[in-house]
């Protein structure tokens, strides 16, 4: 397509942005058709780290598919773990003990903060500011240490099990979470002074990359992209799962539809995550962390099941078709950034190259999740 337009206008030229490019955070390739500094057409080319996770889902038993979840979006692996175990628990009607649910929420929200912190750093890095990245990593490292003490891993967690969690948490972990929240709360004003209120950053983000609510709807965009376009939609609120209804938290919504709005949504979301964790730690009951009776071989009733959770980047949903066997007949993974990125081509038309990259950063891409 784009090569035809190129031949029509001799002034236009094509640029391959990626698959190895500092701004694409992995192996995304964008075929850019440029008119000087302006983007005429930007076509993302996917599939560079496609691993066919969906086929693996059909070949492995339900339990064996569990570690795959952490490999989709490695930055918020626990959200994906949660989505999958909840789906299977729904299918096999497994009751989860309440303490396990609380642990799940605490660890998932910690993971969400770490994901947003990394995005924050990487986004400012895209815009050319290097230092905030390392400040964010400094904070993120505390989360990883805490999660490591519970889950045993630092990035690709495989912690939740059908019917609970693989192990209990200690009080040190809970107090550690509270100390971390205190620390992050005291660091947030620094982030805002250093980055958010910076006039250069505001110039780069305000009004850049407008994505209307209507466009979000047409492209199925979810998560902070949707909330930055003024739509109050969060799976945790709209179709609550786990013990989220127990907690009092807000969904940050901004009406500006630009990159700054998406930026602010994520920054505010970190505050809300901290609120949820605090409430969960205050309320966490004693008890077992594994359901008393979990079938050794899970064979859900035939039919198809759908479960959606709010991952750090938007709605992550799994559609599983079961035939009553110990394997899935079909496992569809609906990843949020796949839809979020699909609006890039239309929305980036006519942008400056620098703005297009700022816009791309504000969508928050994790390529392994797009390519699956």
């Amino acid at each position, binding site marked *: 397509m784009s090569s035809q337009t190129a031949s029509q206008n001799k002034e236009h030229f094509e640029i391959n942005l990626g698959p190895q490019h500092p701004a694409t955070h992995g192996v995304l390739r964008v075929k850019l058709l*440029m008119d000087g500094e302006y983007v005429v057409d930007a076509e993302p080319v996917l599939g560079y780290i496609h691993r066919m996770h969906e086929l693996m889902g059909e070949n492995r038993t339900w339990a064996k598919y569990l570690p795959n979840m952490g490999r989709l979006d490695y930055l918020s692996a626990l959200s994906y773990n949660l989505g999958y175990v909840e789906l299977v628990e729904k299918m096999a009607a497994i009751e989860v003990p309440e303490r396990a649910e609380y642990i799940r929420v605490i660890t998932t929200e910690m993971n969400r903060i770490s994901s947003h912190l990394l995005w924050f750093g990487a986004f400012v890095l895209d815009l*050319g*500011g290097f230092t905030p990245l390392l400040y964010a990593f400094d904070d993120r490292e505390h989360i990883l240490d805490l999660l490591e003490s519970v889950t045993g891993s630092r990035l690709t967690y495989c912690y939740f099990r059908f019917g609970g969690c693989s192990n209990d948490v200690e009080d040190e972990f809970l107090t550690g979470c509270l100390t971390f929240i205190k620390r992050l709360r005291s660091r947030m004003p620094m982030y805002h002074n*250093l980055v958010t209120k910076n006039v250069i950053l505001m110039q780069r983000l305000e009004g850049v990359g407008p994505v209307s609510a209507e466009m979000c709807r047409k492209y199925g965009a979810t998560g902070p992209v949707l909330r930055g376009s003024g739509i109050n939609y969060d799976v945790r609120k709209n179709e609550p799962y786990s013990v989220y209804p127990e907690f009092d938290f807000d969904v940050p919504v901004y009406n500006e539809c630009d990159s700054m709005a998406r930026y602010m949504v994520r920054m505010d979301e970190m505050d809300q995550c901290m609120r949820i964790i605090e409430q969960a730690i205050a309320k966490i009951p004693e008890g077992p962390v594994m359901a008393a009776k979990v079938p050794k071989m899970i064979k859900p009733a035939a039919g198809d099941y759908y479960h959606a959770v709010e991952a750090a980047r938007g709605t992550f949903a799994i559609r599983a078709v079961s035939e009553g066997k110990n394997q899935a007949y079909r496992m569809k993974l609906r990843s949020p950034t796949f839809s979020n990125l699909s609006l890039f081509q239309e929305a980036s038309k006519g942008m400056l190259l620098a703005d297009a990259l700022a816009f791309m950063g504000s969508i928050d891409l994790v390529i392994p999740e797009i390519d699956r």
Partner: protein
Amino acid sequence: MDLGINVVEMLIYLVGIIAFAAGNAAYLVWVERKGAAHIQRRTGPKEVGPYGLLQPLADGAKLMSKQLIIPDGVDKPLFMVAPLIAMVPAIMIFVTIPFSDSIIARDINLGLLMIFAFASVNVLALLLGGWASRNKYAVISAARAVSQNVAYEIPMLIIAITIVMVSGSMNLKEIVDFQAGGFWNWNFLPTNGNFLGPITFVLFFICFMAETNRAPFDLGEAESELIAGFHTEYGSMGFGLFFMGEYANIVIGAALTVILFLGGWYCPFGLTDGIWWFLIKMYLLIWTVVLIRWTYPRVTLWSLLNLSWKILIPFSLFNLLASAGLIKILG
């Protein structure tokens, strides 16, 4: 006899200048890395020598021992000559810089003019390097660098003209001498007739950062957009020369700011004037440049041009007129 002394003197100055430029470039890289590291709560280079002080030498040895790759299809002569054009004018400019009353290679009457003349050659190097690389990123970068340099040379020159008007000379030494005797005589204050005073100093500082393609104005080498910009295709010493040229330009810019606004080698309180004051002021400015680089995100081309045409040029033009009036009043 005279000629012999001249030749010896020339050689000493030549070696001194090259050593100063190269040494500064090398150790500014160290300062930059170490400074950036500590700003970001890291330690930075520390393995090669105490505090990593020998790191620049190791870097230099590495760069020199690398193969000089000339990609297929580049415009070879231009590709080879571009790094030299980046480095040579930078060294040339040092000739006219008065580090102190006596340490100056050539006291030229139109020193300021010469500096600006050679400084504008720098952009040619970026243009040639980008153009000859046969790389689209490099071409975009070259185009950006040129438009940026054109936009920022204007306010820079207007501010320099104001200073020339205030001092009544284009000889750098005379400009410094004019500011002798305490900081209240320096040009960054309105006492001499520079109407907007500190504001012009800041404007000049911004212009010099933009001229030297430093962050946040490093559009030419915006790594998240254009990979490495005009020197994407350069390796080995080709890249090394671009790099050294950039740092030499920073030193020149800081030195020029010191000369024009901060009283050169004069002590702020009229005591113990000498080259150390010049160096202290210069390195403080350079540290500010480093700090700025590691604090701000990069501006876009449009807001960069906006800044130049909508803020810097109106301010500097107004300052030119107002200073002329002020000088008239001050007599």
